[in-house]
């Protein structure tokens, strides 16, 4: 028997039952079919499970599913508008800012949070802002360029 939780995910009201010790990441992936957020380290070091809770980027592996009660959660699945990709997604593709793709959903969510607070970040600010996200393929440079370019598009 689990705990019944009502929350909002990407604008939709969602109800689920989970065990009290289950992480939000496991709830998203295993109970709700939202497999965008990935488990890398499971200890809050790699950021591949990044989602937003009440407007702040968090590692969903370090949030309990039961904590989601009444909160607003945004995952990478909510980033695009229908079939139209978010500028960050478009620019990640254009700049080839991914290879294996495991870190990408986390980078996108962390970059989104960064640009919401700071629409025109310097390279240094981007690197510090994304320091909680690890990528073992790209060497980060292409990711930084993609975020800079997306920021430009988003500023209009």
């Amino acid at each position, binding site marked *: 028997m689990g*705990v019944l939780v009502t929350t909002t995910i990407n604008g939709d009201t969602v109800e689920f039952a989970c*065990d*009290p*010790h289950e*992480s939000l990441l496991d709830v998203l992936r295993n109970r709700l079919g939202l497999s965008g957020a990935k488990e890398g380290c*499971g*200890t*809050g*070091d790699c*950021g591949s499970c*990044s989602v937003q*809770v009440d407007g*702040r*980027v*968090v*590692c969903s*592996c*370090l*949030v*309990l599913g*039961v*904590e989601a*009660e009444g909160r607003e959660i945004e995952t990478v699945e909510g980033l695009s508008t229908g079939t139209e990709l978010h500028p960050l997604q478009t620019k990640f593709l254009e700049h080839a800012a991914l290879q294996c793709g495991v870190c990408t959903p986390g980078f996108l969510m*962390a970059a989104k*949070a*960064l640009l919401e607070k700071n629409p025109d970040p310097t390279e240094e600010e981007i690197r*510090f*802002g994304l*320091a*909680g*996200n690890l990528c073992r393929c790209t060497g980060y440079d292409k990711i930084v360029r993609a975020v800079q370019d997306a920021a430009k598009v988003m500023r209009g």
Partner: protein
Amino acid sequence: MQYEAPETTKAAVGLLAKAKGSAYVLAGGSDLLVRMKGGFVEPDLVVDIKRIKAMREIKKTASGFTIGAAVSCAEMNENKALIKAWPGVVEAAGLIGSKQVQSRCTVAGNLCNSSPAADSVPALVAAGAKAVIQGPKGKRKVAVEDVPVGPGKNSLKKGELIEAIELPARKGKSGDAYLRFIPRSEMDIAVVSAGVSLTLGDKGVIKDARVSLGAVAPTVLLVKAAAKAIIGTKLDEAALEKLGQAASAACKPIDDKRGTIEFRTKVAAVLAKRAAQIAYKRAGGK
């Protein structure tokens, strides 16, 4: 495991006091959930304090600031009045983990976790902060340096929890600073750290100071001899030298993969001096 998210401190204390097995307070979870995941702790009860309204607020009062135990370090870094009064404390809180961790982690949790390398603790100790502890026998206030008693161990009794951290009001020309040494530029654990808070009297002479060191002993240290070395001075070369000597003399570090005893002892002096210079400048000294 039972999960509870009470809405009052009283209810939280009641749950913790009545708990039969192991009970843990959940604030940001950046320590607790990692330990649960690693199998180091298996709580029978977790009491989430984030639904307690009073614990979510930073209040500015005549006697200073009250930072609720569930206030995240990100929220501290967005509070202009707090940043202005205690820049060192806020910077130290802002050094814990990543943006993701910042969204959740709290200084009260950092204190209770009782790591000697905790970033916010030396800054809080230097600031003369107090922990407001609520428990079955009522409220008590203790100096933050008396909360950790060893690595991973704190002085809270069964049923007790920290409700808030209090920072004193800033009077006159005052400043604080926190510095840590890490081999990376971010996202790392302090090898050595130092916090300094000071107040200037007439003509830039230091009339009051507190100096703390992190990661050089089983708990964060308040180094009174180091403060004494700079009180009554204008932080001239001789005073800085004595400050450094006192800081090194207070170190009782261990050798580990992050740093040697020799390195930590030497760098403690360097960081204490530099932090004192920043705090002095922030206080308006020249």
